[in-house]
């Protein structure tokens, strides 16, 4: 498939552009860091939604948990900024795995739309509960420690934080999708009962998939808390109606169930969204709602899905009706 055709040249070009971008456009560093955050969002959602067919509305849960975990550790540990941050990122990732396993035990047994709505409930409940706990600032939110040194250096630091995290996520997922794990979760997507009958331990794979996505999302949350400098329970940490939906949209827009789709979708979506923010101020959220409907109704296959249908031979697929109809794997 497409992963096999990736030549080193493409990666070198992406690497060069990524390193040059924050130096060439110093004013947009936060935006560029956010772009990588969006890429992480889309990729981690796609493990569940695209590859495994478990359309989660609740992945934002791990993002928020990671964010709060890191911020609380930074506030209470008394360590210096960088050691607290490093420890916080590790803690956030670990906590993501733990919560994924804990909630996964109950909620991953649900199928189809019941899972979608159950996970939505989980994320919204988490946000509402976080808004009622005084220890983490309740509804008024909490601030994260300031970056020591000049703020431009901080912007650059967090740009590379998210760039490196996104790269690690990408290569980890590529490794996972190429192996037995990828085959197993694709089998779960196609027919869970049959996969189970074939001897695949579906529960174990489902939990692992959720834990992987939670691990990276938790670490992303830890960094994001420091990037935003302020954590609000409903609008930042457990922002179900913004980030929570965007990660789904980005994956669908690019083409869910593919490795590159979420990346492409995230880049396009983030740029569109920023344009809305700039030119439609006040109406940007209305425009986003409209965009959701348009993407979902008219492009459920995504960009890569559309390209695959158009030029199947370039994706290493034989052209016959059977693969053409199931090739999109929507």
């Amino acid at each position, binding site marked *: 498939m497409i992963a096999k055709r990736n030549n080193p040249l493409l990666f070198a070009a992406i690497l060069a552009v990524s390193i040059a971008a924050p130096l060439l456009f110093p004013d947009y560093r936060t935006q560029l860091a956010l772009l990588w955050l969006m890429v992480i969002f889309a990729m981690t959602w796609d493990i569940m939604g695209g590859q495994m067919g478990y359309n989660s509305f609740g992945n934002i849960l791990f993002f928020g948990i990671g964010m709060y975990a890191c911020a609380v550790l930074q506030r209470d540990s008394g360590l210096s900024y960088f050691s607290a941050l490093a420890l916080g990122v590790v803690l956030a990732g670990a906590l993501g795995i733990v919560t994924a396993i804990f909630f996964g035990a109950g*909620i991953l047994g649900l199928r*189809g739309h019941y899972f979608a709505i*159950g996970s939505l409930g989980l994320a919204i409940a988490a946000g*509402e*509960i976080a808004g*009622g706990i005084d220890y983490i600032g309740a509804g008024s939110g909490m601030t994260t420690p300031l970056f020591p040194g000049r703020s431009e250096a901080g912007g650059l630091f967090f740009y590379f934080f998210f760039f490196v995290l996104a790269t690690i996520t990408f290569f980890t997922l590529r490794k996972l999708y190429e192996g037995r794990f990828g085959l197993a979760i694709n089998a779960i997507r196609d027919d869970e009962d049959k996969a189970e009958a074939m001897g695949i331990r579906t529960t174990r794979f489902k939990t692992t998939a959720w834990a992987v996505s939670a691990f990276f999302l938790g670490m992303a949350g830890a960094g994001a808390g420091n990037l935003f400098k302020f954590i609000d329970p409903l609008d930042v940490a457990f922002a179900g109606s913004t980030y929570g939906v965007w990660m789904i949209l980005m994956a669908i827009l690019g083409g869910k169930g593919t490795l590159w789709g979420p990346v492409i979708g995230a880049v396009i979506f983030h740029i569109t969204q920023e344009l809305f923010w700039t030119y439609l101020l006040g109406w940007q*959220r209305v425009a986003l709602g409209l965009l959701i409907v348009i993407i979902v*109704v008219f492009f459920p296959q995504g960009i890569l899905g559309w390209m695959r249908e158009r030029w199947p031979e370039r994706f290493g697929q034989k052209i016959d009706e059977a693969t053409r109809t199931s090739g999109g794997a929507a």
Partner: protein
Amino acid sequence: MLSNIQILFDAPLLFVDLMVNGLLIGAIFALVAFGMALVWGVMNIINIVQGEFVMLGGFITLVVMNKLGLHPLFGIPISAVVLYGVGWALYHTVIFRVVDKDMFISILATFGLSILIAQLSNQIFGADVRTADAGLPTLLFFNGMVSVSAIKLIAFILALVTGLGLWLFLKKSRLGQAIRATAQNPRAARILGIDTNRVYAATYGINAAICGAVGSLVVMAWAIQPYIGLPYTVRSFMVVIVAGLGNLPGVIVAGLGLGAVENLAGFVFGAEFQIAFVFSLMVVILVWRNFKLKRRREYLK
């Protein structure tokens, strides 16, 4: 929290008050869930816009009261009619494209619509919490320990009447029969000459009209703001799941029960945790239901 439970034991009349008011709001939930069950059963769509229809009904009632100068009770039929139009229009622009797709697509599409409508209302009506004063008295029982405002009682009665009317409509009327036929087997219905597209549009419109009427009751008895929608959607989803799809009397019982439980929980845990309670309860109900289904499947083996 424990002290709140203690208060309940010390003042049983407070418990009665909470239960009565909970049952009254439960009738509202039951009615919204009625519409959701209808759309889910007939069109196989989980309609996330449900709560936004309620919210729109409330705002239309406010417009009727403030701009047209009518009594807010007139808002009930007016918002029902307007929302029927909105539902019909939404069906013909968006919903008909997702009606035969897989359910996740329809969930996401209606979720997008719900964000769109909530944000639009925020732009048009503003983000304030608003309420329409119907000028009706509050009835007091047991020396004022149990208070029920008349509008809540009217809302309760209207909810029951609407539920009954809808049930009769589905059983007796021509369109109701067509709706039931389509729900059972859309292909066969089409072969027998039922225009399923029109049936779907009517179903969706009727659902929106019910929600609109509920919205004007909500704005008179409680309050309304642009982002009130999703909790209503979730509540109706829960009610439909607990009742079981296709069990309309069950919807009423489950709706009333949810209202009572939620009101009680709001008092025990504190109002700031009420929404959290609703959403956690939904997750618990889903997992519990799944557990039950799994046991049944294992018996079959």
